[in-house]
């Protein structure tokens, strides 16, 4: 049981690691598309944290079973937040990619250092 309690934090550790892998891509890579991929990893890590919080031990997905007595359900609120955030995330990602496409057309490159040199 001690081990299980310890593993109860595993989701949050993975969240921290994923968040920082995404952040590393954003700050250390010069390629703009790679930076955007890093941003979407960062975003997915945040989604993972929220969804990890909704879990209730012994619970099930929050779709009420009318005949079940004493059924536990997981928390619906983080799910609603993340569900809409995923769709908003892809729209804003597309906006970023559109800007990258225009930068490529203007500067002929998507490497940050080359763009800075060209300016």
């Amino acid at each position, binding site marked *: 049981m001690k081990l299980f309690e310890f593993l109860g934090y595993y989701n949050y550790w993975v969240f*921290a690691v994923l*968040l*920082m892998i995404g952040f590393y891509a954003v700050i250390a890579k010069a390629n703009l598309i790679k930076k955007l991929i890093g941003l979407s990893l960062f975003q997915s890590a945040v989604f993972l944290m929220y969804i990890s919080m909704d879990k209730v031990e012994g619970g099930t997905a929050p779709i009420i079973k009318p005949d079940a007595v004493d059924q536990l359900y997981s928390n619906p609120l983080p799910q609603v937040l993340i*569900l809409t955030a995923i769709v908003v995330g892809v729209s804003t990602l597309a906006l970023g990619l559109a800007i990258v496409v225009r930068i490529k057309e203007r500067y002929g490159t998507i490497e940050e*250092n080359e763009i800075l040199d060209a300016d």
Partner: protein
Amino acid sequence: MTIIFAIFLLTMLVITAVAIVQSSNLFVSVMLTSIFSLLMSINFFVLDAADVALTEAAVGAGITTVIFLSALALTATQEKPNSSGRGIALVVVGLTASLIIYATFDKPRLGDPNAPVHQHVAPYYLDNTMEQMGFPNVVTAVLSSYRGYDTLGEVFVVFAACIGVLFILDARTGTGPMYVARQMTGLRHHLIPQVVARILVPFIVLFGLYVQFHGEYGPGGGFQAGAIIATAFILYALIEGEQAALRAVPRSAQLGLVICGALLFGMVGVLCMIMGGEFLDYSVLMENPVTARQIGIIVIEAGVGMAVCGAMLSIFHAFAARSAGDTHETV
């Protein structure tokens, strides 16, 4: 058993993320992000978030990958080596990760029923949805009724992002030899994808409609359905060429879907005000408040579905219409 599976999945996520960042071939990175999303979606399912898993699978693994690939076609598929500042970035990232991990020990354990997050409004939603809404899916109830304002805001963000993409990419019908070739043929000379996709497209649309209209009783709703239906049309565009896809759903229809969807949602809210209630309080629409809420939710979910589907299609076609080498010198 589930916990071992969950740990396996989470470890796979980390490995995939490292591979995504490590690979210098952007095409490989993008395909790995698709796998990453699929793993993430299974993870959400293990964590009891069926609605979110469905959205992540349709949007993350499907549409995001297609949009990334169409952007790669317009830019570059190879990342240039660049090692400046890698050391300091690693130090910053490592320090921050250890700080966050240290902070997690103050968090409630996974699945703890006494965690603060489960004490506030969530029990109210779980106890009252059946009685007030008359359908079992609490996520749909919170999304479209209890938290209708938030959802309206999100729909307008999607709307604004879609308009932004169309402006930035100057989305008119593309020109250039590559574009014309792709527009005419698609993948028509590849027999197997074509045959398989022809069979799949109608069923994907049918499944999307099921997800849309069954969203009150099972996992689903407007966001998922819009994304799924959009993937069906994107698949059609990839296989049959863009011309055929634009004949099926012309640009004006895509934009019309976005605008009508967003407006439909807002108008239902205004209608509630005219009928004497508060904004997005559906209970005043009819005699019986439960039926009224159900009707309001079906209408706004339809609005969400239309807006999301139209936005995804417009964004995809905006990228697809701009072919490499066709630069529209507008500086």
